[in-house]
């Protein structure tokens, strides 16, 4: 199985952990398939399956204080603090996005593409630029998953679940609605292309 690997650079990004309540919103350190799906649907208008991994040591976590205004009542709401990933040093955040290659999706589609990932785009977060494109055909190995992915998309990524850790990722059905869909989370034991693994393991199956 082949994947299109996009090496991207990001200014700063917020990928929420779906904690909608409260006044503090932590940020994920991985790019789930739901975020990739949303980003490309917005930018290219097509359903694209992918997941992403931020490269360690290219980012740090910082806080962003955001005061929300209730536009209907014209009053200020309780401000909240959102964590975001900010570049470490003078460079940009680096990430790898892996797209499932098929007849309808070619590498050309992503050449020099600029798009937005994650939340608070209106505040300048999530601006992403594709720097380099490769095609990769990784080996299948047993290991601990390093990404978050809808459970029903595992087949598309050639992931076989051995021992899952389930959580939920938001799945929008239209611009205002959606539901939380069961997803495979980090550290699930799987057989998968090695690019999706945190570490290789050698357990009995």
């Amino acid at each position, binding site marked *: 199985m082949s994947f299109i690997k996009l090496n991207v650079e990001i200014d700063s990004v917020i990928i929420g*952990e*779906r*904690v*909608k*309540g*409260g*006044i*503090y919103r*932590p940020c994920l350190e991985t790019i789930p398939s739901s975020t990739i799906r949303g980003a490309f649907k917005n930018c290219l208008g097509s359903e694209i399956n992918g997941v992403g991994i931020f490269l360690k040591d290219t980012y740090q976590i*910082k*806080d962003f204080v955001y005061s929300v205004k209730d536009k209907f009542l014209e009053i200020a709401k*309780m401000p909240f603090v959102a964590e975001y990933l900010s570049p470490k040093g003078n460079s940009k955040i680096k990430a790898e996005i892996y797209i499932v290659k098929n007849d309808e999706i070619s590498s050309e589609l992503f050449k020099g593409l600029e798009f937005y990932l994650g939340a608070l785009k209106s505040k300048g977060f999530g601006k992403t630029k594709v720097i380099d494109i490769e095609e990769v055909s990784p080996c299948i190995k047993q290991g601990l998953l390093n990404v978050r992915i809808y459970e029903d998309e595992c087949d598309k990524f050639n992931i076989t679940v051995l*021992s*899952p*850790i*389930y*959580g*939920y990722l938001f*799945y929008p059905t239209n611009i205002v609605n*959606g*539901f*939380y*869909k*069961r997803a495979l989370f980090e*550290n*699930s*034991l799987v057989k998968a292309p090695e690019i999706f693994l945190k570490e290789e*393991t*050698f*357990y*009995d199956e």
Partner: protein
Amino acid sequence: MDKEFIAELHDIGKLLDKDSPELQQYDLTGHTFENFDFGKFGIEKPTSLSWWAQYHHTIKDDEDLNTGDSWKDIPQEYRPDLFLLILADHLASSISRALPQLGSAGKSEGVLKLWNRKFYENEKNKGKYWAAFKSEVDLKNIFEIINTVSSPEDFLSQYNEYLILTPEDKSKPRNITSLYTHIELVGKIYRVLKKHCEIKMESLLELKLNGEAVKTIKDAEGGNRTEGNQNIEKGKWQARFVKCYIKYPHSFVRLQDINLLVKRNKLAEDLVAKYKDYVMFNTFDFISLFLPTGMELKAMFKDFLDNGFFIEYIETIADLGILRSNLDIKIIRARKSNRSDIIKVLNSRNTRVYRKILLPERLDKVVPPICDICQINPAKERMKENIKEWICDKCYEVRECGESFKYPGEWQEHKIVWFKFNLNTENLESWLQKAFEEYIDSLNINNAQTLKHEFRSLACQSDFVKDYKYMIEAFWDKANDLAKKPISNYDELGVFLYSGENVKKIIETFLEVYNEYFPDCEGDYSSPISLSLSISNVKYPIREHFRFFESPDGFLNIRNQNIFHSSYDKKAIEWLINNLQSKSLHFLYKLASIYEKTKSDISVIVEIMDNRKSQQDISDLYFKINIPPEKILNFYRITEVENELHKT
């Protein structure tokens, strides 16, 4: 006459000082009494079932329990207990009993703890002594105990102070486990085997485990080796060691949500009480189990799953002859490095290691809102202090149950420090292996390499965990006035009002108790024990403190919200506490700024060399402990500088 068979009594003779002048006339040898001449000395021979445990060293592994010569003195009805006791004794030993002669490393009087080598010497200086029995009266008392003790707990509690000082085996290097832990584990494993073993007593005695009948110890265990060509026969009986990590997906929204830890501790307590013989040892979030092959884990952890926890576990299934708590590490290492010699032996013995997760039922999809806390269950809208929250019934129940911790009024608007001790059981296994190897190297013995490979860490782990619990108890005895325990019966977690002095005192108290209990365990990145401190404003979300506590990088980890995050080893922190002086602050800022700009150690060294006369203490610190000036500065800022945090 016959009470319960108390396996814990099998090594009671190890508490007897045979060299005591009063006992010379009895000509005692070994640590068992099967050959003791009761008639000659006019002492009544014990008649209890437990008496037959004294024969545990006389039985030959390859002799049939019905017809074997070594079994002939044991009445048929007592043979199953003795048989199972021998298996349990082998499983609980720190070094395989089947190893060849060890050479002449000598004997030690008291236990040698790998992490506190002078433990026995220090206890002896306080007037304590390993032997519980030294006189003629004591000798008679041993037989009385064998006859009359009514429960394992009675024996363990009555002789605790001697059992913890006496080694499982006085000959080096087997002297690394306390007799207390050894007999405790033997007792547990014996009772698990007994519970699951089918015993048929007809004309011939038959013992079956999981449908497999055996006649000799060797039949049950198989060989004792995991590599090479000798002694690798397949055993008929297999069992499991299971390492269970208790985890939760919850992120704490409000302070009361830490009640989840109260719940976890209570559930763990209940499980340990209900399955006490299956539990080899446990910490607050880890349980080590010995189980027969057919026993379901899901039923054991049902209450955890019902309350939203999940259990990640590593399960090793092997013949009893090679089964040990750290076999999984050996198997995985062999597979990783493709050691076909080891893999072949393990496969031929049907040895398996699984990594699995027990999860509560999960819905395919959840229609919003989803619970803010567990992020798993559908939630209901709830209002508190004019803030809307979406919490599921279970998490709400946990939040509202019991007495919840509240910050004292005078802490409001101030900085506070949350701290948590952590015992990493994976690091502990690696550390014990390394420490054992160093100990072997320090002795002049044959078969050093074989011994290193055959080390069984279970008993040492259990001893270590006990000392860890004592250490944090001792910490709170000293730090009770300094900090508060948010959960009264949970010693790993604390919080206090920030001041440089308080931070310093807490760290000093930690170092004091650590050095008392673990003086020979290097406090570095590989240390099994760590302490993390998270400094923030009182309003800072509690979940973020816990996120920081999840993965401690080093021995002492300090995070100051939005300012820095540094880890220190013990050596560095001791140097910093003892040598850092206030006059150095400006120079430290200068060094940190140089390092920040240049990322160059050379530039920092040049600056220090240029100022070595006026900044002698910084120069010494930098060259002796070799940590970046930024880390020195960070430590200085949180422990020494008045109001420094508020400035930043």
